[in-house]
């Protein structure tokens, strides 16, 4: 494989990654809707943490460092206090809005 081909493949993968992001964020929003309104949230909360964790781990490598940072902040907040109290919920909602902004292409 040549470096030129590698560059092209990377570009394709990055585009594939970015195309899939709205779907991932929609899933995150749906899980948050369940977590923020239900009393028993064990499994959805776990899934939400994992989704955010995965985005935090991969976005930076695909050229979206801001998205990684916000996803990490949201995951950390969620683990610490995301479902406790109105303030915690509002902060989580803000972070999810930031997450959406960070996923948009620049400009």
């Amino acid at each position, binding site marked *: 494989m040549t470096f030129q081909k590698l560059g092209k493949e990377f570009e394709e*993968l990055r585009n594939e990654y970015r195309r899939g992001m709205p779907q991932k964020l929609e899933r995150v929003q749906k899980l948050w809707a369940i977590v923020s309104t239900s009393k028993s949230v064990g499994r959805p909360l776990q899934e939400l943490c994992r989704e955010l*964790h995965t985005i935090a781990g991969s976005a930076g490598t695909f050229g979206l460092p801001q998205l990684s940072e916000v996803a990490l902040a949201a995951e950390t907040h969620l683990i610490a206090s995301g479902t406790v109290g109105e303030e915690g919920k509002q902060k989580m909602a803000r972070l999810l809005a930031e997450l959406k902004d960070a996923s948009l292409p620049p400009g």
Partner: protein
Amino acid sequence: MDPKAVYALTAKGRSELNAPGTSLSAIELKLMVMLDGKASVAQLEVQVQPLAPAAVADTLEKLARAGQIGLAGEMSSAGIDIVGFSLADESAAGLASLKKHGYFVKIARQAAQMRKLAKGEKITVLVVEDDPQLAKLLAMYFRMENMETRLASSRGEIAAALNLKPLPDLVLLDVVLPDVDGFEVLSRMRQHEAMKNIPVIMCTARATREAVLEGLQRGADGYVTKPFDVDVLMKAAKTVIGLP
């Protein structure tokens, strides 16, 4: 060694810890991770149990002689009293920073022996990663290095991939997976006669000092936090396999 003595990494030590290609032993690495910040001898002795205090002291002296760590002050009976600067303040700032940004590292221990490949021989890497695009990206880069990859993202796929012959020459292991914890996989590999010596690099967004220590404690040869620079990860992979 004075249990109140407080040590910290030197610039040389920090550079060694983050250069993917360290020749430090497992215990040296653990102490260096703990000292990335500052800690007293007494604190280290508690944290690295069951290692004997004498072994901790020997290792610290060795690291100090090598210029990897240096004396940063001492703890007084009234609390923390540091010569030249305040541990309390630095500690608080460090903790706040860790909470905000995580503890990002790229650690890779040099293989004990260099690996010489026979003509036509290829290295096989098992990539355990549940993000499909990231898994593809890694496979692409390993292919570029003339290495074969197997991909797995769940408990069943990991078991199936490890049952194939030949055994992988390297396992790149995520921690947070859908139905299994990567640390548990690592521990099982280290208990398995045929797999205990396979180099393993934890490659994960689990970026806390505790997680890094847990990975090293359970026998990982490297720990690279996500998001990673692919070139750094490739260098780490070659280092733990023993390739130039």
